[in-house]
């Protein structure tokens, strides 16, 4: 396929953040990789680096990924200062090396935020996001108690709009990109999905109050409308979600149903 041939193999200089587990800090370490096919993914390039480190008897760079097709939210590093790298609307794993000119120097760092402590090298702990979800990222319905699925029609535009918010993959890039390390885009997307859908309405107020309370408790920052989150988001979650969350919060705070 065209992606693979035609353009020749490439070499890169890498500056990669290395931080031992449990250490207070780390540093950028220089590496070189060559023989890189432009159709390779960024993570496959890192695989190749790690293979060569293993063979030299050095410890590979710790970096997380799983689906490698942009849907599980496991991957995510800061590349040349940008969460998920230079190409908009994609995850780190979907990034291809053809996006980097031959010979370029590429700096790779972990997602940084107070609420995302570094575990090792490029791996951070994002469990704060799960703890926010625990507080209300759901509809309370036990297995077996659901009504017939077509009993509640939902207008197609409402469902489509809810789907736009539901597309969030909980990767945390919005937090990493935000100068305040705020999680508003992520929480906003979850709140908005359930604010739109009738199934979410019975718990609407409790949900937004609890999730925002947990967000604050986890040490995420405040939102001051920089919009960096939206630019970094691989799933095109719009900052409109933050506005919805604020409205929902106000509404709940004054106790409206």
């Amino acid at each position, binding site marked *: *396929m*065209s*992606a*693979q041939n035609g353009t020749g193999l490439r070499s890169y200089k890498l500056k990669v953040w290395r931080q031992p*587990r449990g250490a207070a800090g780390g540093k950028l370490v220089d590496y070189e990789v060559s023989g890189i*096919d432009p*159709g*390779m993914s960024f993570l*496959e*390039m890192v*695989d*190749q680096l790690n*293979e060569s480190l*293993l*063979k030299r*008897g*050095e*410890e*590979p760079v*710790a970096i*997380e990924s*799983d689906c*490698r*097709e*942009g*849907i*599980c*939210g*496991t991957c995510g590093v800061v590349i040349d200062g940008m969460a998920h790298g230079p190409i908009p609307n994609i995850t780190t794993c*979907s990034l*291809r090396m053809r996006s980097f000119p031959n010979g370029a120097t590429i700096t790779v760092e972990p997602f940084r935020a107070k609420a995302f402590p570094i*575990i090792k090298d490029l791996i951070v702990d994002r*469990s704060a996001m*799960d703890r926010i*979800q*625990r507080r209300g990222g*759901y*509809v309370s*319905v*036990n*297995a077996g*108690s*659901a009504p*017939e*699925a*077509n009993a509640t*029609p*939902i*207008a*197609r535009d409402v*469902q489509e709009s*809810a*789907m736009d918010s539901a*597309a969030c*993959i*909980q990767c945390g890039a919005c937090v990493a990109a935000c100068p305040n390390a705020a999680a508003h885009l992520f929480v906003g997307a979850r709140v908005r*999905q359930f604010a739109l*859908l009738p*199934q*979410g309405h019975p718990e609407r107020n409790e949900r937004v109050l609890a999730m925002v309370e947990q967000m604050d408790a986890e040490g995420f920052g405040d939102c001051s409308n920089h919009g960096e989150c939206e630019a970094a988001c691989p799933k095109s979650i719009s900052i409109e979600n933050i506005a919805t969350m604020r409205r929902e919060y106000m509404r709940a705070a004054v106790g409206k149903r």
Partner: protein
Amino acid sequence: MNAPAIGQLEVVDGSLDAKAPGGDIRTRWDRHRFEMKLVNPANKRKYTVIVVGTGLAGGSAAASLAELGYNVLNFCIHDSPRRAHSVAAQGGINAAKNYPNDGDSVWRLFYDTIKGGDFRARESNVYRLAQLSVNIIDQCVAQGVPFAREYGGLLANRSFGGAQVSRTFYARGQTGQQLLLGCYGSLMRQVEQGRVKLFPRREMLDLVLVDGHARGIICRNLVDGKIERYAADAVVVATGGYSTVYYLSTNAVQSNATAIWRCHKRGALYANPSFMQIHPTCIPQMGEGQSKLTLMSESLRNDGRIWVPKQKGDKRAPKDIPDSERDYFLERRYPAFGNLVPRDVASRAAKQMCDQGYGVGATGRAVYLDFAEAIGRLGESVVRDRYGNLFDMYHEITDENPYQVPMQIYPAPHYTMGGLWVDYNLMSTIPGLHVIGEANFSDHGANRLGASALMQGLADGYFVLPYTIGNYLAGVAPGKVKDDHPAFADAEANVNAGVRKLLSLKGKTTARELHWKLGRLMFDHVGMARNAKGLTETIEKIRALRAEFWENVQVEGSADDLNQALEYAGRVADYFELAELIAIDALARDESCGCHLREEHQTEEGEAVRDDANYAYVAAWEHTGDFGKPRLHREKLDFENVHLATRNYK
């Protein structure tokens, strides 16, 4: 040592009790539920259940068990339960709702699934699955899963391979993620209420048996390397599929066979390991550094037309090849189903065309999937509406625009119909060990139809296991086994020894290099078409590679740290053992069925020839300590409701 011929393997008949009820198939599940023992509601909290896995199967089971009042310990290798590979399912989930009024019914879904599986699945299980399919959709909609809808606000359906009715529910191209989010929400609600204790970043490395019953697991904490013990009254394994044995597959890079393989080594029988689905519509392999293959949803076959040039080695650009010089080979060979034939049939046909020299692309290992006609008929915007994100993904990966140039696709390992053997209660041959989702073997026979794995995982987790496990627990006094029992110390020592051995090897090659070699071998000889000679030679080669692994692999770092090289090497070590069983199973099944085409058994046109007189059974393998000599237990399959017939999609 030579690979065993089937005659040299020990065969046992009548040892497996599937516990499938008899009588009218339509009321079997109702009667079974009535006959099962119940745990008193007040006593449920005294029971602890371990659930390994947080995908659609494990997540739904953990949440539902907790809702019933059980104490649940839930484990996954990921940082969050919501990352399980179920998240990647694109196309949809089947249910016999018959909303489109096109003649669907529970019976038809049952029939399609039995036939699609080429008559190698258990009728009772499949009927139950079809019955429960409708409850799943109700449950997911109530959770706020934003399934696609029609303009009137009601749920939309589309058709999927292997079916002539529209029964597939979907949420853009991310059905799996939306279903998993619903399931994850229910799970997190139970975590918040304290009924589920979550253990992320843990890898199950052994099963603990006390007096022959599953009573706990041993895990490695993937952050600090600590080996941890967990005791319970029953264990549920829901660790997903393991197509990664083939190195390149559509599965996530961390998908693995370790949990079920280690259960197998503790005595759980492993059923139909060679039933391995190779999915027809994947982006072809590009280079050697590639780490995985990307699936293009089967739904694309609803509007895309598959073709190759009529002339061998035709190097013209596709747009320069006139219609009369194209071979739409699926439409030609299977006029009734056309591009919508089941996966095994579509994959094999594509392979045959490429093997005969008609393949396209740089490697000749690809066929076209062309949307020009659909774009002409429907307009680009409708096509974008239906498949936009898939087209974008294809464009991103290949740098080619599928709105202008036909996609290139080739089959890739995708789904494992085989897995640990379970009875109608989803319990393995080890009492107390239950297996659900893709990790078990049930329901799909020799070939899974599209959009039915999500259905099975959720049926198992929401609606089957929560009842059937009660039947087991009702006979167990709760909380009797603690993790200071000597069986835990033994299993822990076993795990520690394995970890130390891997770190001590200090060889010259990497686990990835050997895994890559294994994958090539498996794809070429235990893939879409197999024969006795190739399988016999492959078994020898697997053994040689396994020996090389244990002599020459290099794993850096320490046992007491986050160590991904160590995790990966452990999984690859298990693939080398499992691969041999897969090849032995393929060799022993001297017939063609579903995904398993034995070249010795095909018609002149290349269609599979089943041998129902000799092979209408589930092959359940027992580990004997010698990988080359597993013991075969045969569960005979009876077809009382769907008559055994040759599949015909013409």
